[in-house]
């Protein structure tokens, strides 16, 4: 195949970000707009003091033009993340988080950090969470088997990160069987 080895097994983080941007987020618009049809569906109408649910890519676009405020999802708060980190470090299994939390949190923190409470704290909490989860994935590597792998509660970005070498390692283990 003509693709480099690293791209054969998995998609790239920017591609995952693109997919994650299809998800909906709540905004408070600052402009009025009629209901508008897009390929993925019809969104709107936007009426300034009322909340609206639109895709993240559209919210980011409006935000950059200062035409809306993005409301953080309920999981993107300091308290929620702190609790998750506590669970993550005390339990053996991965804690449940939104499937695309890594992508969405990064996009929102980049585009709309002024709409979030305490963005720097959020960033460091997300980093802690990521590191705690990585340590668990590493521990799981020791008990890798050739046939199956349970990835309960692992997020899209994390699966994507470990996929290339996990499947390769599993293939090797399969080859080494008697």
């Amino acid at each position, binding site marked *: 195949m003509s693709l*480099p*080895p*690293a791209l054969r*097994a*998995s998609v*790239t*983080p*920017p591609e995952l*970000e693109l997919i994650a941007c299809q998800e909906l987020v709540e905004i408070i618009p600052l402009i009025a707009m009629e209901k508008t049809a897009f390929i993925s569906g019809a969104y709107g109408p936007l009426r300034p003091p009322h909340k609206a649910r639109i895709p993240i890519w559209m919210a980011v676009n409006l935000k950059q033009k200062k035409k809306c405020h993005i409301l953080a999802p309920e999981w993107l708060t300091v308290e929620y993340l702190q609790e998750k980190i506590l669970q993550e470090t005390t339990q053996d299994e991965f804690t449940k988080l939104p499937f695309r939390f890594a992508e969405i949190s*990064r996009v929102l*923190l*980049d585009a709309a*950090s002024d709409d979030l409470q305490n963005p720097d704290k959020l960033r460091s909490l997300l980093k802690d969470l990521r590191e705690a989860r990585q340590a668990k994935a*590493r521990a799981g*590597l*020791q008990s*890798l088997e050739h046939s199956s792998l349970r990835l309960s509660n692992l997020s899209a*970005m994390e699966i994507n*990160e*470990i*996929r*290339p*070498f996990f499947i*390769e*390692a599993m*293939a*090797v*283990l399969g*080859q*080494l*069987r*008697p």
Partner: protein
Amino acid sequence: MNDDYFSIDAILAENQKVGCRFKTDIPDMGHLGGGGERDITRSNTLQLPIWLVYTVVLSDWADMIMPPAFGNKVRNALKAEPCSVRLASLVGAGGLWYGFGKTIMELYARASLTLLNNFQLLSNSLDDKTEMSELLTNTFRKRLVEVIDQAQHFAALGPAGGAGGSGDSAQSFREGLDGTERELFALAQEGSKRMKRWYEEGEKARR
């Protein structure tokens, strides 16, 4: 690592030399040993590539001597500490230790099918392919974590800090990586680099 017909790795793994002790005289085949002798005589020991060993052993012309790469010494070292054994230096160019082991394992499998009790191994008690498989699997699994750890460590260093002395044992482990592990190392490193780049893009955009 796979046993596909066109797999270069499989061909290289089959090219490893293994010692064979002949049980019968074979006339006019002395050139296989690379010497000037005309015939192969009984109880001569020759180094043959493993693709040839299949035929020689299965026809009961010779006994295979367990190659030192899987000998007692190496097995004991692997039992003690898998990460401190330099697999690459146990086998020749290309360093496909697992591939070599797998080929020997297949030889056992075929031998046990064709000539049940005739297949004996000198100099080694590792006469069971299950045991061989366990040796390979345990070694691979225990070294895997270290391989991935180091790959991620190097991905985090970035292009500038690659050569820095990060401890002798780590470096000697890297130099001793088998070809299969090397591939995994590259995969994990590339993946970590991409993640790092993606997270850093966001940080740059903020500044």
